[in-house]
């Protein structure tokens, strides 16, 4: 990850990436057959009505001038007006950020809580029954599609046991924690597989490292060797995996948001593509890009905090 070199250089990269994304999404979107007028009018489409809509939305201008207008607005912090919601796209997107962000953070925490102890234990007892059991369980949960796993969790915890709500976001932090538990668990179970497997592998290889033997021979108690030397080094190897997958997780919330009727960015993105709501699609894509870049940078920072060698490389 440190291949980006210094932080300032990295920020320049970020700007270039974001610019590229505006260009690609803007023109790709317009290559999709069907336009906003058709999405709005459906079966009662007529050429005259479509033209009226196009002129109302400014879609009758040349495409380059539309792109120029979009970029001009973007520098002033505006994404334009949502065709579908009829309010500023920025406002629409901001309303949808909390659900997704909360869900991703919640899933990430749950995944860490699930996979750290299990992955470490599986590594310590590699090849034994507990290790095999965790392998089977997490391979299955990884293979289960989120929409199916989500429905099964709803059936068990909401319909039969009535302990968690079926859908919705709740209000207040406590409400969110309660309402988002099942969706977060759905995501966390799939996400944990990668973490458990890599933590297990890292633990096994760390156990065989020479410094572990050295520490043991120095007479350090085994529990302390595990805590200070094995666990710390093994977790370090997993942080990068965690970061990269977390970035994927953001875009992967779409299915889960659908199953649990959550008003998040994933749902918004899918709906807006169907509606050909160009300003919103462009905006959400940008937000996703910013989030993913931010998580990557954050991963570096965490890694540096855990391992001074990484920090030195970033700092040069």
């Amino acid at each position: 990850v440190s291949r980006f070199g210094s932080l300032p250089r990295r920020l320049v990269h970020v700007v270039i990436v974001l610019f590229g994304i505006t260009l690609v999404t803007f023109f790709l979107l317009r290559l999709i057959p069907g336009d906003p007028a058709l999405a709005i009018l459906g079966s009662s489409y007529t050429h005259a009505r479509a033209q009226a809509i196009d002129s109302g939305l400014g879609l009758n201008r040349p495409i380059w001038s539309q792109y120029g207008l979009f970029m001009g607005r973007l520098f002033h912090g505006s994404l334009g007006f949502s065709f579908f919601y009829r309010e500023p796209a920025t406002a629409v997107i901001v309303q949808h950020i909390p659900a997704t962000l909360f869900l991703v953070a919640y899933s990430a925490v749950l995944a860490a809580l699930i996979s750290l102890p299990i992955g470490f234990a599986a590594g310590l007892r590699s090849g034994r029954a507990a290790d095999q059991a965790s392998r089977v369980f997490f391979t299955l949960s990884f293979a289960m599609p989120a929409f199916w796993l989500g429905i099964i969790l709803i059936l068990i915890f909401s319909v039969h046991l009535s302990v968690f709500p079926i859908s919705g976001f709740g209000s207040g932090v406590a409400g969110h924690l309660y309402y988002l538990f099942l969706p977060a668990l759905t995501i966390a179970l799939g996400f944990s597989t990668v973490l458990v497997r890599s933590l297990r592998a890292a633990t096994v290889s760390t156990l065989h490292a020479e410094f572990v033997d050295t520490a043991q021979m120095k007479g350090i108690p085994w529990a302390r060797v595990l805590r200070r030397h094995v666990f710390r080094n093994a977790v370090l190897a997993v942080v990068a995996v965690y970061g990269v997958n977390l970035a994927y997780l953001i875009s992967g919330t779409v299915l889960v948001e659908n199953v649990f009727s959550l008003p998040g960015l994933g749902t918004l993105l899918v709906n807006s593509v169907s509606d050909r709501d160009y300003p919103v699609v462009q905006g959400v894509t940008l937000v996703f890009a910013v989030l993913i870049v931010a998580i990557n940078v954050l991963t570096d920072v965490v890694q540096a905090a855990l391992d001074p060698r990484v920090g030195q490389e970033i700092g040069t």
Partner: protein
Amino acid sequence: MIRGSRSRLLSAGLAALALTATACGGSSSSGTSGGSNGSGTLSTLVIANAVKVDTLDPEANSVNESIWLDQNLYSRLLQPNATGTGLLPDLATSWGISKDGLTYTFHLRRGAEFANGMPVTASDVVYSIERSRAFKGGWGFLLTPVKTISAPDPHTVVVTLSQPHAPLLADLAMYAYSIVPEKLVKAQGAAFFQHPVGSGPFMVTSFNPDTEVDLARNPHFYGTKPKISKVRVLIVPNDNTRVLELESKKVDVIENPPGNLVSEIDKTPGLSVQLFPSTRVDFIQLDEHYAPFKKVLVRQALNYAINRNAIVKLAYQGHAVPGASFLPYRMEFYDSAIKPYPYDPAKAKQLLAQAGYPHGFNAFLITVSGDVAGQAEAVVVKSELAAVGINVNIQSYELTTAYSKEDSGHSQMGERYWTNDIIDPDEVATFGADCQGGANAFSSYWCDSQVNKDVDQARSELNSTVRQQLYNQVQQAVYQQSPFIVVDYSPYRYGVGHWVHGFHATPLGNYDLSLETLTVSSH
């Protein structure tokens, strides 16, 4: 109701029985009512819709579910009745039409008030209609013959026309011409529709278009106060989740339970799937830019080659009616003398040979991905046309992409459907049969000058016997010449708990009338 619900996953099912039992009132409880103790009533109804709310601004609505929602909030001059075959007074208690058919005078209800207590005046009515008329890409084109709309006094609205226009009353009963308070809309602009104030039976207390809209009884409503005091409308896009919400009794009514779960819901004690006649017509357009479809014999052959009963059974679990006329089933001026083409592959082969295609031809059929019923229909069509030598290649696209391909007139065959926005046949005839109506006869690009003339004449003809005659001619011509294959008429489908008494949707899809009277038992 332009777009219909996003997905036709909905498809729909309807026993012919339910269709013929007009205005079945939706009163539910037959069989056991599990969990309902029958004692006590609840004040809140919870409905789960599949589609988010686009807006509560009637001039701009395009999503059916949102249209049905905002009909609970606003009044119009008139409203369609429960069977969708006539009009009832709403804000106008009576109206008169001049002898030449060019002047309509509406007398407004005295004492009608908006939900905030402000009186509804004639100038609000004029403002609202003019506002919707001017909306770009909206429904202003329906009112093209309207010359002036004026308010000579606070209780009278006068509409003058440049030529007689038979659908005028039906047009004014449409959602787009809902009445909003002029002062507030002018002062607040778009923000008004985040917390709108109308004169309908309910008002909005909380508006989250993606998750939940809450309504409360409007204390100033002119009519009988609804028996329930609150309605919560949840947005639950996932089909399975919606059904689970109903099964766990957290929700009272769900729209569009998926076809494959209908029998499961019916088997669950206390729940049932209710079907309401709709104005939906499922058809397959035949694009006349494709050489074989230029020939009327080929188009007729396809009609004989397709087994409508098999499609109804496989795609709609038996809950649809085989299609005959292109007008929505049993709407005003529907010609019942027209019967569905019989299933007759031998006759189809003979017609194809006569047309010069004894060995058939290749064609592709556009379907909408995710539309379960539509996919099933496509498979049946493919296998039946193969039997007469026509090789059909099914192409699936996302909804708007599919429409874009079908509208452009290079689609060969395409699955489509229609739903009415008004109760008058003028709309469907203009879009479906008049090639100069703007929609190229449902994008078939079929053109018949006599039909165009008949549609125009029926629009300005006020004598209903003559109109019936004209619309019969149009329906006969479309039936004979088959610019598209009318496959079936499918109903609206709702999953309803037996503790809800009196839920009912009209053929236009509105359920506001039933929300005024229904009751909810504790369960």
